[in-house]
C-alpha cells in the first residue's frame, strides 16, 4: 500500500531528480556520509564520543534482576508498528533482553501484534537461548502472536498481566492509543515498567505510568548503547551532528522571525 502511494506521488517525466525531494535527499546523503566517516573512525580505532547515560536502558538489568529474584516472568513487546525504524530498534533491545533472560534462566513472554514480526521475534529469542548455551530452556509458546487488532492485542496482554503476573514489563517500540491502557494495567499488576515511544501524542502516558521512559530518539540509540559497539555508536554521533545542523537552522529562523518579523526567506529556501 505504501509503495502504491509512492507510485502515485512520483513526479512525472523521465529520469530526473525529484526537485521537491531535494532537502530530503541532502539530509539522507549527509547522514550516509557522516555514518561512513564515523565507521572509518571506529575501524581506525580513533575515539568516538560516548553516549550519555540513559536511565531507561540502565534499568533493563535491574528489571531482569528483579524478575529473576522474584521467580516471575518478564513481558516484552516490540510495539505496534510493522517493520520500520522503531520496530528494528525494539527488536535490537529484544535481542539484548533475551540474552540476559536466557543467562538468568528467567521466563520471557514476548507478545507481537504483527504476524510478520512474530517469526523474527521467535528467531531472535531462540538464538539468544542458543548463544547462552540453554537451547532446552527456549519455549516457543512464550513468543506469542496475539492479534492484529489493536485493542484485541491490548485486551490479551492485559490478560497476560493478570494471569501470569510478570515482574517486569518492557514496551519498546511505537505505541498508539493502547499505550496508557497497557502501561496502567502493567502498573496495577505490580510490574517494574520500561517504556519507549516515538509517538509524541502518547509519550506522556508512558512518562507518568512507567518507571523509566525512553523518549523519542533514545529508542534509536538503544542498540548502540547496549552493544557498546563503536560503529553503532558512531551512527548515533552522525545523527547528533545532523540534529545540531537542524537545530542551528531553527535558531537562525527564530532570530530572523524575531528581528525582521518573518523567516519566510529561510522557509522558501528550505522549500525548494
Amino acid at each position, binding site marked *: 500500500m505504501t509503495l502504491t502511494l509512492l507510485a502515485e506521488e512520483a513526479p512525472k517525466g523521465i529520469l530526473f531528480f525529484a526537485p521537491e525531494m531535494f532537502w530530503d535527499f541532502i539530509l539522507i546523503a549527509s547522514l550516509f556520509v557522516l555514518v561512513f566517516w564515523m565507521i572509518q573512525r571506529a575501524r581506525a580505532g580513533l575515539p568516538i564520543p560516548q553516549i550519555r547515560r540513559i536511565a531507561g536502558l540502565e534499568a533493563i538489568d535491574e528489571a531482569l534482576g528483579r524478575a529473576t529474584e522474584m521467580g516471575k516472568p518478564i513481558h516484552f513487546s516490540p510495539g505496534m508498528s510493522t517493520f520500520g525504524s522503531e520496530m528494528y*530498534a525494539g*527488536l535490537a533491545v*529484544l535481542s539484548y533482553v533475551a540474552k540476559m533472560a536466557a543467562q538468568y534462566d528467567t521466563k520471557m513472554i514476548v507478545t507481537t501484534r504483527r504476524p510478520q514480526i*512474530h517469526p523474527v521475534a521467535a528467531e531472535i529469542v531462540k538464538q539468544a537461548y542458543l*548463544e547462552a548455551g540453554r537451547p532446552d530452556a527456549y519455549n516457543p*509458546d512464550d513468543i506469542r502472536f496475539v492479534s492484529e487488532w489493536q485493542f484485541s492485542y491490548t485486551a490479551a496482554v492485559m490478560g497476560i498481566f493478570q494471569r501470569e503476573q510478570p515482574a517486569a514489563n518492557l514496551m519498546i517500540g511505537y505505541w498508539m492509543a493502547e499505550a496508557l491502557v497497557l502501561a496502567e494495567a502493567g502498573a496495577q499488576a505490580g510490574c517494574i515498567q520500561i517504556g519507549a515511544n516515538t509517538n509524541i501524542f502518547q509519550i506522556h502516558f508512558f512518562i507518568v505510568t512507567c518507571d523509566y521512559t525512553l523518549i523519542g530518539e533514545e529508542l534509536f540509540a538503544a542498540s548502540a548503547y547496549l552493544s557498546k559497539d563503536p560503529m553503532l555508536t558512531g*551512527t548515533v554521533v*552522525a545523527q547528533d551532528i*545532523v540534529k545540531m545542523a537542524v537545530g542551528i537552522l531553527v535558531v537562525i529562523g527564530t532570530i530572523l522571525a524575531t528581528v525582521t518579523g518573518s523567516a519566510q526567506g529561510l522557509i522558501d529556501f528550505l522549500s525548494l
Partner: protein
Amino acid sequence: MRRQLPLLLVAITAFFVMAMKFFNFGEVGAAAIQEADIWIQVTYEFAFLLGAINFTRLHYGNVARKRPKWVYSVVALIAMVLTCIITLVDGVNGEIAMFLYENVAVRIDGAIYALLGFYVCSAAYRSFKLKNLEAGILLVSAVLLMLAQAPIGDAIFPGISKVGEWILNVPNSAGMRGIRLGAGIGAYAASIRVILGLERSWTGSGS
C-alpha cells in the same frame, strides 16, 4: 548465508524504495512499485498464516495441558474457528460475517478503548504526587491547564485560559517539536544502520 540473505534483501529493497522516491523512472518505475507492493501483500499473508499457527498451537496446548484459566483458550479457539468458517461460507462482506464484525468485534474493541477514560484517572492520581521538581512542574501545569479548559477556571482566576493557551502553544509545542525532530532524524539514522547491515540483531545474530 542464512543471516546474510535477509540483510541483502533489506538493503536492496531500501535502495529500490529510495531510488523510486528521489528519481522518476516513468511508467516502468510505477509498475515496479506496484509489483513490489503485491510481493509485500503475499509475504504478509504467509506471515499471517504463521501467526495463526502460533495462536492455535499456544491455545491448543493450554487446553490439552489444562493450564490455569484454560477456559479462555477454548473461547479463543472457538472464536477463531467459527469466524473462519463463517467468513469462508458467507464471504467477507456476508450478512452473518458483518453482523459478527459490527456487533461483537467492534463493540468489544470499543469497550477496551473506553478503558482509557478510567485509566487516565488512575494514572493521573498516581503521577500527580509532588515527589520531585519534574513532578511538581507536571502537577502545576496540569492544574493550570485543567482550570484553563474548564469554564469555571476563568470565573475563579480571570485570564487563566490565556495562561493555559500559552502553556499549550509555547513550552508544550516546543517540547513536542524537539522530540519529533530528534525522533525523525534518529529514525533516518536507525534505517541507515539497518540498510548498511550494521544493525543485525533482528536477524538473531546480534549486532
